[in-house]
């Protein structure tokens, strides 16, 4: 089973996944990776998305398909102030 270190995971998140979410008006920020869970922050349109769980699941599927690495994506949401109700 392939493995990533935190730097490799950061690169993957920032250069592979982030551009895709940006294309939907969103923003994905890498926070941490502990070998099993990739912690990210959802910003922009992603911060209020009602199907974010599906998207995070897909991120895990894509990671596995692209790299052979298995990980779960967990997100916190950082909304702009005007959505932070």
């Amino acid at each position: 089973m392939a493995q990533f270190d935190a730097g490799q995971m950061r690169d993957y998140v920032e250069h592979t996944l982030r551009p895709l979410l940006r294309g939907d008006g969103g923003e994905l920020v890498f926070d941490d990776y502990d070998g099993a869970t990739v912690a990210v922050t959802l910003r922009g349109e992603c911060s209020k998305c009602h199907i974010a769980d599906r998207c995070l699941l897909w991120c895990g599927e894509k990671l596995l398909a692209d790299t052979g690495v298995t990980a779960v994506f967990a997100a916190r949401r950082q909304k702009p102030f005007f959505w932070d109700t």
Partner: protein
Amino acid sequence: MAHVKVQRRSMRPEEYNSLRYGWLRRLIYENRRPVGPVMIRNARQTGENDFAFYDETPYELRPGDLFYTPDGSVFFELEADDGGFDPRRPLYLYFETTSEVIVKVNGRYAGGFDPNRTAVEVSAYRGGGPLQVEMLGFNRSKPDDERNPETMAKRGCRQVFDGIFLCNVNETAQSLCYDLELLTDLSTAEVFDPEYRAFVSRETNQALNLIDFEQIRPQDLRAAAAYIEAHIYGDKTWKGSGGVALVAHSHLDIAYYWRRIHTVQKNLRTVLIQMRLMDKYPGFTYCHTQPYLYETLKDYYPEVFAELKEKVAAGRFEPVGAMYVEPDCNIPNAESLIRQCLYGQRFWQENFGFTVDSCWLPDVFGNSCILPQILKKSGVDYFVSNKMSTWNDTNRFPHNNFRWRGLDGTEVFACVPPTHFISWNEPSQVAENWEQFQEKDSGAWTLQMFGYGDGGSGATEEMIELMRRFQKLSVLPETRHMTAKAFLHENFTEDKPLPVWDGELYLEMHRGTFTTKARLKKYNRELEEQFRAAELVSLFGENRGPYPVDRLRGLYKRFLLQQFHDILPGSHITPVYEDAANDLAQVEEGLREIVGGGKPLANLTGFAREGWELLPDANGPFVRKGVRGRFARVSAAPFGEITEQPVPPDTDWLRRDGDALITGGCRIVFEPDGSLRSLRYAGAEYAGASCNALRLYDDKPGMYDAWDILPDYENNERPLRLTEPLRLTALTPEAAEFTVTQETDRSRITRIIRLFRDTAAVDVEVVADWHESHKLLKADFGTALLAKSVVCDTSAGFLRRPTQKNTSWEQARFECCSHKWFVLDAEQRGLAVLNDGKYGVGITRRGVSLSLLRATERPDPQSDLGRHNFCYRIVPLAQNFNHCGVQRQACCYNAPLVPCGGLSVPPVLAALAEEGSLYLQAAKLSEDGERIILRLVEQTGDCGVISLPEEVAVCDLLERPLFTARELSYAPFEILTLAVGPAGTA
């Protein structure tokens, strides 16, 4: 008496009506049969018609599966077996989706699905066995399509597939539903009289009572429809008045929450949908803007473009709008706006055989006062916009149909309808439109634009059906569906008394767009100048090859695309910015190749130039805007090579007198933060409180983050720490350089302030490492002068803005657009501020400021973050700004010396260069390649007559000759286009 509020728990009649309407909607699509298997491949769009596939081979998509990916597209292939469907009834492909899908059946483009369209008719493709269906979907529509709450709940980058079906339409149920859609609006919208609403609600209830919803029978549906016809449509008690013209269109943002590459398919889908509606409804007409979009259709979907051409020839599909794209109309300079019209009209002429006489800009954030002249001289008599009447936050824009008088006095007819440009033909929208229409007594009708937009798609079948029913409703104004041209020609005639609006069409909203995405603004300014240089050099440079007409035109059109009103203003997502920056970099590279280098520096401004310039020198002591060099006093004739003037080799020109610095030009006292405590020049004090002071404010306008600045921003100032007080960091015989740094917890802003040996100008270079969130950075220019107005550059003349804030109109203009310069004008003196790429100027009770940077998060969380490098210059004026030649100073500030050697210009151009107030805005080869076009703009508000050494052709802005002359008169702020030559004889 005690009042007990009754809480109603039972269902109101109108709620029951609405419920039953919903039940009837379920009947519309009948005999639904799933088709398949549905095979898909996921992909991501990488170019205008290029895709990178995630799946090597298609796989089956089953109901309940998730499909689409972030920023993803899907290619569908399926067979739809139409066996068993009655061949006498129309057959439909049915797909409920929040995505945007283009449909091809048996190899022919059939239509599209999107959140507002679930059925595509496929009857025309039957008869040859199962239908071969190919579809291309893009995962989303625009993010805030609140019209359709059901689809808003389903949208996202991963969607659940519910299946694709063939079905018939229950036309009786569908027609009844169209009636009920109308009646629901009539019974609830407050624009209608309460008694009328109660009447409609009551009679709708009676009609629906004829249907047994336990067992719905066709004859009951017909009975309900007949009841509505007789009792509601047949009742003429309530009478409306006035006239509303219904024009179908679709506002299509070239980039916004999607990249411009996606717009190619959005445009295709929009055009297909509208053309299929034309097939079904013989009287339906539709108008569509932006020649750029037509070009993409022609390039990538020629068969659809061919069909479009037929429909244009038949008068059904109407090209409108002279401009190449729908650009921002504050920030592009006059030449850019002229080229928008030139290339736009050329496309119409070359492809359809005509030019258009309208400018159609419904969503633009205000319009410069230089536009009427540009439009008129580009063959446009009618201007259509919208936002001033629907978005103004302080004052109601007082006109809807009017004459718009521009800076130079030219007038065009203008229409700013009272209601939003996206409407869907609800009767209340029509009624509100007439009710709010302000020129009722002119005898004209008001304009209602209908059709979904922003992301395109346009009119729906429902909108057309509602429109057809309007004639039955006596409560409404008279309505007529017509083309845009018919509306404009019928309602804007010389005999109709129309008011005049004189000046800019300022939008009291979206004021932040003058500043958001600072790099794009700077690129815009720089490339406008580089295009000027490239065309000049190509025409008149020595030892040049043939004029690169195709290359220049291609580069110009790519540049004009970036001026689209959601790109240049900064109201777009991160990838759009990346695309724009890449496009602009390529344009810049292309222009650099054309100009070349390795030759002596030359002055291309068109007037004699003298002043301090940075000459590149690898060993120079100064670095300005990333270029190392040395300052030198240079002079150059118009179009000539520079000569350097000797400077005494001493540094005694800069003396201290206590806190003051005395140069050969002025006496200055700096504060430690780089602001000016005093600036004395020519016997007067110019600096007031907070002159050249940086100010940082909270900038939290809300959801329209990138767009807006709130009027009370000055109440929320944030501290800037002075970490490196002003100090002298370089001194040469030519110049002195001072550096000061201010910081926040996240950002660092260094200003390099330069003084020159014998001028009073204070040049400020800003190097900012900017990582803020919701902040606005400004530079204040408090002055001791009695400045009652701020004179602002429009790029083709100037306009005055009062500094007093007495009226609500003056108060609303607290942030305005100005181009290369503005002057705090005190009649006999002034304080000028030149800049190299800023457009936002604050004019408040506290004073005047230049907006430098913003840091917004929506739509782009990365907006403006990172490094910025820009300059501005403070110039005290000892006379009226016109006498001091501020316009020329600002031109030089924005027009670097060009390494092209001197130019050999025709005698007529040399003669025009002598004329003080005329500025050579552009020189180019005519579009037909035959002549040289010279574009001149009167900049000072003067008039005069010039005698020329040869006869010239005076042309319009489409380069069509009007008359010839050897003696040329010009008027204040006039834009003149002359044709000389033939080309090659310069």
